[in-house]
């Protein structure tokens, strides 16, 4: 493996993503954790760019780093945000955790060690958005529409639930 700019960029992005994840686990305040999460999301978007998936990268930033973290921040601020988490659990829990982590690492290792990737596609980055659009609206049209129906149901369901709560509270008062 030669040491190219691509490798360097990948190493930097990967390390940043991992640092974000570690900080997410180790920080004490919830809002700080969300900031660490943003760091991870943005570096993953960078990795997507390196894989010639411009559209996915931009959507990653738009949806995850932009919207979802804002929703999380709002959620945290509306609840008890002064709380800091404290480590709990004894030795048994830690051992179980360690075993779980080791098992997961082993499973991932087995999964990717013999993974046979097709020879790398070299035309993916050409008209990336157009290709995704074509695929979504021809080959995958039914799953795509089903997903949107599911999202619509979730949206309407959320509105109905929120409305009901309102009425109940109004009746109480």
């Amino acid at each position, binding site marked *: 493996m030669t040491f190219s700019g691509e490798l*360097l960029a990948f190493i930097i992005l990967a390390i940043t993503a991992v640092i974000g994840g570690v900080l997410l686990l180790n920080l004490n305040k919830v809002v700080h954790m969300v*900031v660490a999460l943003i760091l991870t999301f943005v570096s993953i978007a960078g990795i997507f760019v390196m894989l010639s998936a*411009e559209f996915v990268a*931009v959507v990653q*930033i*738009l949806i995850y780093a932009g*919207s979802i973290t804002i929703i999380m921040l709002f959620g945290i601020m509306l609840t008890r945000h002064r709380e800091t988490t404290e480590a709990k659990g004894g030795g048994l829990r830690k051992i179980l955790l360690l075993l779980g982590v080791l098992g997961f690492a082993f499973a991932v290792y087995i999964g990717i060690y013999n993974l046979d990737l097709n020879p790398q596609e070299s035309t993916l*980055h050409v008209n990336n958005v157009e290709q995704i659009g074509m695929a979504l609206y021809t080959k995958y049209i039914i799953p795509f529409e089903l997903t949107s129906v599911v999202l619509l149901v979730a949206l309407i369901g959320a509105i109905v639930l929120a409305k009901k709560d309102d009425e109940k509270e109004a009746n109480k008062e």
Partner: protein
Amino acid sequence: MVQDLLHSPAGLQNFLIFFGLAVVLLLVILGFVTYAILAERKVLGFMQLRYGPNQVGGPWGLLQTVADVLKLLLKEDTMPKLVDKPLFIIAPVIAFAPSFVVIATLPFTDKLQFADIGVGLLYYIAISGLTTIGILLAGWSSNNKYALLGGMRGAAQMISYEIPLVMSVLGVVLLTGSMNLNEIVAAQENVWYILLQPIGFLVFFIASVAELNRVPFDLPEAENELIAGYFIEYSGFRFAFFMLAEYVYMFAMATLTTVLFLGGWLPPFDFLGFIPGAVWFALKFCAVTFILYWFRSTFPRIRADQLMEFGWKILLPVALANIFLTAILKEILKLF
């Protein structure tokens, strides 16, 4: 030139070249911000029948902003005792950095552009959304109720108006068939999109003013109700960062408006083609920024509930109708 550079092997020399280009761009933008602030104060002054800055640096007050910035830099950097320190420090950075990053894809002329990526338009919108986080964190970490209110308002407003902003641009994307900003400009060779997409332009312009947090949508920093909103606890250099982010976004948004709807660097008529593209770009850009100043001096600030209702109940349906109309005109009637 940049295209060749992008494909060249990585090395210290190329890194230095990129670094140098970025520093030059930063300096150009700082220069723009300096004089944009002066121009704003002058234009506001003339519209309110007064002179504006006219003491420092000659009768036109040419060094006024420089003096102001110097004063900001020399100020004591105060930090209240009960702020959330790491967030308080990092929030201005999170707010400013995306504003500079978005400029990388904006084409100023056919040659003067840094990165030409396929999803340029979406890139702008995605990255600029990160600033919202900076504003929200600034408001939260200040540990001050006015700052928190300002930050919350800022986040709510910027998210609400991002949606009509994206929707209004979709008409342009439909007509061009690409999200690449260069191709969007090239498609305006004959007629600008402001003529083909008047509704889209109106929605886009209103939403962009709201995204910039400028009057009449400057609720996050409304002076007379929230004192100064999310940056009330900030002073000195950190405060300067928020102001800088605001004006760099104005630069970027005016550029984007020019590129999307006013034909970028293309001349309005073919016989005027002997004037270089940079001049045309600068003229259109100045016109857009002037309109932003004009808004500031003529519109009253709207109320928070009106802001939300206007965004969700008027702008969004209008933008959706515009997409529908454009699709019908393009595919069924085949007008374009």
